[in-house]
C-alpha cells in the first residue's frame, strides 16, 4: 500500500504531491470494520442499566431544551456541507465521475462560514466550557466501563458526555486542518474572486498542504461514518431526535445526565455547580420557555 504520491517537478526534483488514494480505501475499510465490530461487540454486552434515576430535584420541566434552533441549524448545515465535500472529494476517485470541483469549493466555503458562525455562537451564547471542560476522571471511568461491563458505570455527565466532547475535539482539529489547507488551495483554482496562482507557495509547501488536506479528508471518512452510525443506533435515537426537535424529555435527562452538572431547573440560575456561570447562558432560556 502506498502512503504518499510523489512526482518529479519540472526541474527533476522529487516532491510530495499528496496522499495516496490507497489511504482513502483504507479509511473506508477501516470504517466498515469498526462499525461492524462495534455492533457485534455491543451485542456481547449486557443491556446497560443506569439504575433508577436519582430523585429528581424539583422544577425539572417535561421537555428540556438541549440544542437551540440556531445550534441545530448550524449542525445540519455543517453536516450537509461536510457530506457534499466528502462525496465530491472521493466519489470521482472511486469511479463516479462528474464535474466536482465547483461543488467542492462552494461546499467548502459554506463549511467555513458555518464554522465561523459556530465559534462565535459557542463563545458568545452557548455554554462554551460545558464542551471544553476536561473531566479526566470521567474519561478514565468511561474507558474502564467500556473495557469491562463489570466496571462501575461512569458518573453521569453534564450537558456533553465525555465521548461527545472527545469526538468534538477530534472533529475540530481534523476539520480545521482540512479547512485551512482547502482555503489556501482555492488560490490554485478558478473562482470568480481571483486569478489563480499555483506559485504562491513552493512545491514542497504545496505538497505538504495537499498531504494534510488528504489526511484530514480520509480521517473524516472514518469520523463521519462513526458519527452517523451512532446517531442511527436505537439506544441513541432520543439524542438524535434532540438534534432535530431540540429537546429531550425528563426521563432521558434524569437517566443520562447529572442535574448537578447540567442544571435545567428554574432555580438553576442560582445553583452553583460544575456547569458554572456558563450554565446560565444555556439552561436559563429553556427554563424560561418551560414556564
Amino acid at each position, binding site marked *: 500500500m502506498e502512503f504518499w504520491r510523489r512526482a518529479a517537478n*519540472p*526541474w527533476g526534483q522529487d516532491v510530495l504531491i499528496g496522499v495516496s488514494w490507497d489511504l482513502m480505501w483504507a479509511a473506508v475499510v477501516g470504517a466498515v470494520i469498526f462499525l461492524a465490530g462495534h455492533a457485534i461487540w455491543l451485542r456481547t454486552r449486557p443491556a446497560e442499566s443506569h439504575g433508577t434515576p436519582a430523585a429528581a430535584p424539583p422544577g425539572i420541566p417535561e421537555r428540556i431544551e438541549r440544542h437551540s434552533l440556531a445550534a441545530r441549524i448550524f449542525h445540519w448545515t455543517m453536516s450537509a456541507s461536510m457530506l457534499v465535500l466528502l462525496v465530491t472529494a472521493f466519489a470521482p476517485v472511486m469511479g463516479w465521475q462528474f464535474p466536482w470541483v465547483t461543488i467542492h469549493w462552494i461546499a467548502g466555503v459554506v463549511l467555513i462560514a458555518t464554522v465561523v458562525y459556530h465559534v462565535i455562537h459557542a463563545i458568545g451564547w452557548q455554554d462554551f466550557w460545558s464542551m471544553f471542560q476536561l473531566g479526566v476522571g470521567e474519561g478514565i471511568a468511561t474507558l474502564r466501563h467500556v473495557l469491562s461491563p463489570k466496571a462501575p458505570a461512569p458518573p453521569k455527565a453534564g450537558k456533553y458526555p465525555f465521548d461527545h466532547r472527545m469526538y468534538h475535539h477530534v472533529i475540530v482539529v481534523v476539520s480545521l486542518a482540512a479547512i485551512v489547507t482547502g482555503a489556501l488551495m482555492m488560490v490554485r483554482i478558478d473562482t470568480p474572486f481571483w486569478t489563480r496562482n499555483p*506559485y504562491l507557495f513552493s512545491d514542497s509547501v504545496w505538497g505538504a498542504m495537499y498531504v494534510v488536506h488528504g489526511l484530514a479528508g480520509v480521517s473524516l471518512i472514518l469520523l463521519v461514518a462513526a458519527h452517523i452510525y451512532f446517531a442511527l443506533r436505537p439506544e441513541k435515537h432520543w439524542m438524535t431526535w434532540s438534534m432535530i426537535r431540540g429537546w429531550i424529555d425528563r426521563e432521558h435527562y434524569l437517566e443520562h445526565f447529572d442535574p448537578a452538572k447540567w442544571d435545567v431547573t428554574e432555580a438553576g440560575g442560582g445553583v452553583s455547580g460544575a456547569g458554572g456561570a456558563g450554565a446560565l447562558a444555556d439552561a436559563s432560556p429553556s427554563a424560561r420557555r418551560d414556564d
Partner: protein
Amino acid sequence: MAEKLVGTDIAPPDLHAKITGRARYAEDFRAPGMVFAKLLLSPMPHARVRRVDARRALAMPGVIDILRADEVPSRDGPREACLTDYPRYEGEPILAVAAVDEETAAAAIEAIEIDFEPLPFVIDPLDSLRPGGPNAYVEGNQFSGQDGWSEFRWTAEDFAVIDAGGMPDPSCPVEWTKGDPDAAFAESALVLEETIVHQSLTHHPMEPRSNMAYWEGDRLFAFVSTQSTQQTKFALASALDMDPENITFVAEFCGGGFGSKISGTTVMQVPAIFSKKIGRPVMLRVTRYEENYIGRARPGFQSWLKMGFLPNGKCNAIDLIIVQESGPYGASDYATAGMIADLTYTPQNMRFRAVDMFTNTPPKAAQRGPGGAQIISMMEPILEKAARELGVDRLEMHRLNAPRGDVKFGPRDSTLTSVHAIEALERGAEMFDWPAKVALSGRRDGSRVTGVGIGLSPYTAGSRDRDGLMIIRPDGKLYVHQGIGNLGTHSIADTARPAAELLGLSWDDVVIVWGDSSKGMPRSTVQAGSQTTHAHTRANHAAGMDALQKVREVAAATMGGAPSAYRVDGGRVSGPGGTMTLGRVAERAIQMGGRYDGHVLPEDIHEQTIPAAQMLAGQGLMGVARDNYGGEGNVYSWVAGFALVELDEETGVVALKEYVGITDCGTVIHPRSLGAQVLGGSIQGMGMAMTQRWVFDPKWGVPFANRLYTARPPGMLDVPPDLKWDAVGIADPTTPVGAKGIGEPPVGAGAAALTCAVADAMGGRCLCRTPLTPDIILAELEGRTGVGRLEQHVG
C-alpha cells in the same frame, strides 16, 4: 577554346553520393568496437552540481564508463566547456556515459543520482538590466578580459521611461557616435521613434551535431559535422591542446550549419576525449531534442530606434539602442547590426548604443546574417513607414537611402570594394513590376488585404590572404585540394572553377579533393560570413596561375623556347617546341622536382599549408600560392527582396503570394546554386519574420519550442511554389574573378520584404516585433490584448 566554367550550371561532384544515400555524414560512420555515449543534460537554467552518484549506473551490465566535467578542458569566465558542473542553461551537458549500446547508455543516465543546487537565473535580458535584477552568473552579468566580472544595470529613471513606453537614454558598454545626431534630428522633417523586439530562434540544421571519434596511438580520428574542415581541425586541436598534425579529421558532408557549426561544435570534444579514456571508438548521436539545446540560436534584440528624415525621404539621423539576449556565452550580433544600420541608410549622423546581456538560455551563435538580418527586418518597415508619411514612393525611398560606391560607414568610416545595391533594387522593381504591384497595396478581397514590401539587405561577403593548393597528376587531371567545408553551398567545387579555366581544362578533368585532412588541405577560411566564394576563388586563382606558369616552364624546359610562348588548353600545352599533354608535363615536373613538384614551396604560404604541400610533393605538378591580390575595403554583397502578401484580417494569417530576390554579389560562378542561396536564404528570413521563435516558461526558465513543430521552421507550403531571383552580375574590381559571397544577405531581405509587406497590408501599422504570427496580428487588428510591448521569448 577552353570550356567556359565560370557562370555555367555544373552539378557538384558530390551530388551522386548525396542522392543515392552513399554520402556519409558524421553519424553514418562506423568503427569496429564502437560504443555509444549519451549526455546528461541540466534540468535547470542555472545551477551547481552538488553531488553525483553513478555507482548504480556504472554497475549496469553494458555500461563502460562515465566522463565528468573535470576531465574536459575548461576556461574561466563566460566560456563554454563541453561538460560542466555549473550549468548556465537548461539542457547544458553535465556528463556523459558510454555503453555498449545507446539504450543502455540512456538507462544508465537515468540511473545516475545527481543533486543540483538551483541558482537565480535570467531569461529576459531586461530583467537583468533592472535595478536589483538577477544575474545570469553568480559572479555578475558583464565580463571583460581585463576587469573580469561586474554588475551592469540601467537606472530606475531609465526604466521609468521604458515602462512609460518611451525611449530611454541609458549608458551602455558599447557606444559610438558619428556626426551630430541631435542637431540632425532637429533638422529632420519627420522623426519616427519605435520600440522593436526581434526574437531569438534556433538554427536547427537538418543534421544534428552528432560525431564520432577514436584513437590509434597518438592519432585522433575525428568524424565531425562542421561547416569548415581545415579550420575545424585546428579548433579541435587547440581545444584538446594537441598537435593538429596528429588529427585525421573527416568531414565529407555537413547537413547544414547556418552558423551553428562554423569551426565545429563544442560537443565534438566529447567523443574525442571519451574514446581516449576508454580506448574504444565513441559515437555521440545527438538527437533533435539535444540539438535544440546545444545547437545554437540567433540572439534576440530588444531595441529602441529613432530615425530622422529630410522632406525628400533621405534618412539624416539614427539613434539606435540594442539590448541583446546573449545566452550564457555571448554573441556579437549587435555590433554588426550597428554597422549595417549605418551602411544601409547612410544617415551621416548616428548614435549607436548596445549592451549584450548574459542570459540562462541556450548558447547563441552567428546565424546566417548575424545582426544584419535582425536589424534589416526591424528597420526596413520603419523606412517604409516614413515613406508613407512623407508621401515618397517606397522604392524611391530605398533607392534614395541606399549607399553609393563612395560610402563611408561605421565608427571608423569603413569603405566598400564595390556596391550595386541600387542596381539590385532597379532590377528587382522591374522583375517584380513594382509600379503595378504597389498599385495593389491595400486592395481588399473579402477579408484579405494585399500588401507589398521591399527589403534591402547587405552583409560581408569576402576575405583575403588564403592559400590555394592543387596538383596536376600524371593522369592529366587537376586535383584541387580544398580545406573549406562542404555544407551544401557547392563552393568546394565552384571555387575551383577559375583555376580549371586558367589551365584550359574541361570540368571532367578536374578532381575535387575535400573533407579529409589526411588528403592535404591548404590554409582555408572558416566557412562563415560568406567569405568562401570570394576568398577561395582568389586563392585557387593564385594557385592556378602558379600551376600555369610552372606548366609553361616545364614545357619550355622540355621542348625549348620561352615559357611565355606556350599556351595551355584542352589538357595540352603547346608552343614553339611542340605539344605535350598535361599528364606528361606532370611526369616531367616530378623529374624536375624543386618548386615544380612541390619539394620547394613559396616563402609566403601559410604554415598551415606547408604540411599538406609537403605531403603531396613529388606526386605531380603542384600549383600552390597565397592570395596576394590584396585590395582595399570591405567586401559586401546585397540582396533586394520584393514581396506581395495577402493578410486575412479575420484570422491574422499572412499568405506570401509573390517573391523576387535580386543579388549584387559580383561575378556569378554557378547560377543555379546562386539562385538556391538567394531564395533559400530569403525563405530562412521569411521563417524568421513569420513563424520561428523560442518560448520560455519564465517561472522555470525552460524552453518549450524544442521540437521542429513548435520551433516552426518554414516548410514547403509556407512559400509560393514559384519564387524568382536574379543577379546584377557586376564583377567586383578588387578580385581577379570578381565573385563575392552570398550566404548571408538574403536572410535579411526575405525577412524585411515580409515585415514591410505585412505593415503595408495593415495600412502602414508596424507591429515592430517578430515573428508576425496570426495571434499577434489578429490581436492588433481586433484591439485585443497581445503580448507585452517588450516581451522576449513569448509566443
